[in-house]
């Protein structure tokens, strides 16, 4: 009987956690679009076809990443600053090591290990890209942007990481954001 109750508890816990993460991912999707729109140099980050490409990075849960991608795509106006956006759902390796594709931003849908996150941040800094993660604690780990959930959901910026990646944001956006200073 005890084992049965314990197994129910074990099964129920990740479900609550997943719900919480899912909500953060959905709320983060909107803030991610606002962050890209606030990038002063966003026009320069279009690909050769004139489109903006964003990568939704996952480790093993492609379905969830696809769900977030749908949220990003299914907007009344899916463009950012009148530029068409192509949303790609890719595993870590493809998103980071891709030489031919140039992304304007990368959206993390799963928690990365410290090594993988460092590799991603180094790659983004080199390519002058925005890395965004709605996952709690990732901004403190060096990701440029995320979300701060308080009485309302606000953008959460790591100002040092933004400076390092040479990402410039509109002052309006910075004003409404919560800032993390290392």
């Amino acid at each position, binding site marked *: 009987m005890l084992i049965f109750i314990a197994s129910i508890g074990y099964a129920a816990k990740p479900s609550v956690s997943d719900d919480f993460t899912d909500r953060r991912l959905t709320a983060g999707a909107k803030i991610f*679009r606002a962050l890209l729109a606030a990038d002063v140099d966003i026009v320069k980050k279009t690909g050769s076809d004139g489109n903006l490409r964003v990568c939704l990075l996952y480790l093993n849960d492609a379905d969830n990443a696809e769900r977030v991608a749908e949220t990003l795509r299914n907007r009344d106006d899916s463009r*950012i*600053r009148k530029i068409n956006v192509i949303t790609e759902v890719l595993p870590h390796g493809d998103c980071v090591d891709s030489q031919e594709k140039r992304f304007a931003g990368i959206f993390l849908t799963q928690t990365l290990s410290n090594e993988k996150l460092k590799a991603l941040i180094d790659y983004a800094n080199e390519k002058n890209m925005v890395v965004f993660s709605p996952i709690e604690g990732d901004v403190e780990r060096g990701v440029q942007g995320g979300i701060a959930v308080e*009485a*309302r959901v606000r953008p959460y910026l790591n100002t040092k990481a933004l400076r390092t990646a040479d990402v410039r944001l*509109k002052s309006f956006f910075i004003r409404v954001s919560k800032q993390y200073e290392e």
Partner: protein
Amino acid sequence: MKNKPDANIRVHRTYIYVGLIFVLLIISLQSLLWMYWGKVLEPRLQREAASQANVLAHSQAVRLADALIVEDAGQRYHVLNESLDEILLFTDPETNVPVFLGCELEIDYDVVAAPPGSLDKSHGVTYCHDCFISEVALYSPASDELIGIARFRVSDSLFQRLSKDVKKTLFGQSNLGTLLLLIVCGVVIILIKEINRSRHQAETTSRAKSAFLANMSHELRTPLNSIIGFSELMSLDPDFSPKYRENLSIINRSGEYLLELINDVLELSRIEAAQNMLTETSFDLYDTLEKVAEMVRLRVEKKNLQFVFEKTDDVPRYIKTDERKLRQILLNLLGNAVKFTEEGGVSLRVKLVKEKKAVSNSSLVLLFEVEDSGPGIA
């Protein structure tokens, strides 16, 4: 007679101390509550109210954003004004005070296609001393782009109301606490008064009893002295046969014993009546010690014990102290020693321990040792 006013002063002092302690307790309670209110509760309520103001402001941001993305410039201006007017109309049903006192808009004209400054509107008050200011981002519902910032001035009526209610409850309960403390203080004072009254009554009764005993003992001694005196005289009369003289001797000894008992009772009653004072007189210590030794020797011989009396040469002959008490102490100690010793002996040793000479008054310490071969104290 002197003790009574002192006791009254002590009792009154106790009342004052008890009263002061309770006054301090009440002051401490009130101070702690004010500190708790000022440092913890009020700031917490203020934070809660500010958070509430943010939520309220955020709830209105969507309709402003909706108005700002209207394509047609004329229509947009109209919808925006209408939305702002409606927002400023909302009132708190509890206080009937407007929730939003003012709203200012700052628009990003890179995103909103309108002449710069044309939509930077200010509705309602632009300054308020106590209200909460909440800056809310306006995101385009269609593209999620940040299109501007709305600065709401939210009335602090909710905070004022909450603050008033919490303060009223907190200090209402503290007044109850103060009242309880005052009641406890009153009860404590009444109890102290009762205890003092009982103590005073007990002391009076005890004093009366002691006085009675002292008087009784005194009255008994007079006839007893006659019995002892006359029995002694009669025992010296040669006309009495040895048998009668023996009987008279028994009467005499019994009288002496009874007198001793009465003296003890008298002494006890004096102690209880707080009249037991040292009566210092100059006397011949050698003579007193001899008398004591003589009295003990008789009892020792009866029990076939040995009695040793020693005193060193440096013991002074004449000293000044309470002779009666010294004799009493020595007789008690020696009496006990004899009483509980069945074989061996009892000894009394006296020696000088310390002498301090001064021009006006010299003092010394004498050591009186009583030793026996009895079982000792269990």
